[in-house]
């Protein structure tokens, strides 16, 4: 966690800029939905949509497109910079070691660390970090706006989300444990290859090939078993999560539809609720996977933290 804070603090300007663009992007998206709701309600009232409304909607679409472009550029730039800082920190760490410490290192394990943990962290930063931040901004902004538009419909349709959140926390913890076991087994297996090379003369001299092959096979089986267990656990937890995530949309159609029939809600508002439900329930639906990824990210960070030297550490 400390390493993550350091990484973000080092590039705080870029991080804040990306979050700000994300906020602007969702604000424009909500404004577009408000325009859309108004147009639907006008058509539903058998009225002609004013030209000014159409122009405003068009301009909003263009601004939304620009904001998405800026968000993509800025988040990509920030992610690459963070990944670069991390790799440089890892390289810098080796320059601070003594010759004895270097000699006692297992090259296979270090290579494994570089290929797996740092590779995974870089991929996570690149593909998930700002996607998750954007999801969070989207979730908070949309939920707040929906509460302002129709508190009753928002609360009733999203109440089951509390159960989903609880389930998310529980399932991500289980997935996180499985991920850690698999990563350890993977590091052991890669370290074994390096050991094999360093002890090769003894292996030949004492004809110990069968012993080492047996040991390697055991390490390989441990890794296979840990990987299968992780995937199986993830599949079970995620499928149940997908089932639960359908409930908010069903409730939204049921309750919102009733309100439209009773005349307490406009059809345009219901359309916007359905259109934006992905921003709330969709985020929740993805939450188990995202939190599992986040836990894996932190597990990776924890494992490499002693091997990364960022300036000022």
């Amino acid at each position, binding site marked *: 966690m400390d390493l993550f804070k350091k990484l973000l603090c080092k590039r705080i300007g870029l991080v804040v800029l990306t979050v700000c663009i994300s906020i602007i992007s969702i604000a424009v998206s909500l404004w577009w939905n408000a325009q859309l709701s108004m147009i639907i309600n006008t058509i539903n009232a058998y009225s002609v949509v004013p030209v000014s409304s159409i122009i405003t909607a068009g301009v909003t679409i263009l601004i939304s497109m620009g904001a998405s472009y800026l968000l993509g550029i800025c988040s990509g730039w920030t992610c690459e910079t963070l990944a670069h800082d991390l790799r440089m920190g890892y390289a810098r760490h080796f320059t601070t070691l003594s010759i004895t410490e270097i000699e006692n290192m297992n090259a296979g394990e270090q290579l494994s660390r570089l290929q797996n943990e740092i590779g995974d962290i870089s991929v996570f930063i690149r593909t998930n970090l700002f996607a998750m931040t954007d999801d969070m901004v989207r979730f908070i902004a949309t939920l707040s706006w929906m509460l302002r538009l129709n508190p009753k419909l928002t609360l009733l349709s999203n109440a089951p989300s509390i159960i989903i959140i609880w389930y998310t926390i529980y399932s991500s913890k289980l997935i996180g444990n499985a991920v850690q076991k698999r990563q350890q087994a993977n590091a052991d297996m890669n370290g*074994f290859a390096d050991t094999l090379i360093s*002890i090769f003369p003894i292996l030949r001299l004492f*004809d110990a090939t069968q012993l080492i092959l047996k*040991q390697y096979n055991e390490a390989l089986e441990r890794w296979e078993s840990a990987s299968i267990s992780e995937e199986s656990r993830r599949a079970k937890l995620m499928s149940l999560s997908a089932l639960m995530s359908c409930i908010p949309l069903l409730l939204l159609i049921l309750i919102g539809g009733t309100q439209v029939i009773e005349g307490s809600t406009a059809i345009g508002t219901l359309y916007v609720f359905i259109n934006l439900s992905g921003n709330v329930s969709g985020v929740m639906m993805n939450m188990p996977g995202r939190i599992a990824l986040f836990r894996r990210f932190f597990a990776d960070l924890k494992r490499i933290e002693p091997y990364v030297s960022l300036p000022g550490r």
Partner: protein
Amino acid sequence: MSIHIENLSFSYGEKQILHDINLDIESGENIGIVGVSGCGKSTLLKLLAGLYSVQSGIIEVCGARRPEDIRKNVAMVMQSTMLFPASIKDNITCGHPLSDEAIRQACDAAQLTEWIASLPDGIDTFVGERGGKVSGGQAQRIAIARAIAKNAPVVLLDEATSALDGETSKAVLSALESLTRGKTVVRVSHRPEDLSGCSRIYRLEGGRLYNA
């Protein structure tokens, strides 16, 4: 004749390491080779162990000339102890079917019995990656026990006592004495004092062997 070396030359690519080495060692003889670091001592020992193939000349160990046959007649202990990431028992037997009695005898001779008895898992204790869970002296004695258990007629010691200190030294030297008793021994070291007890000592310099 236990070891016969005739006109042996060896090079790493363009770099000639050994030039025209000739040496005969009788069974049960204990000889030493001294030389500065990088002079080719370890290369000569690896050739004698059958780890390298002869490029030019002849090496015969207990009548065997092919590296795979030579290796059957040789046990070796090196300065940097190389342990398998396995139990103490597996490190001694190397996965071969040895009787409990043979293992016990190897442990006794290598001064390991008392220490093994104090371990919760005894002889099944895992030594860690690169022997990281045992001390340097203990790792060295496990390597000696492995060489004793092999019961090869020729024992090669590559700087086997160079990294020893204080209390460790006494136990390892005692273990080495058990290992080399009645065997043909070739020791190499960069320190002449490590070769006390050798019947003949040679100096390896410029790739050639001289009487020291």
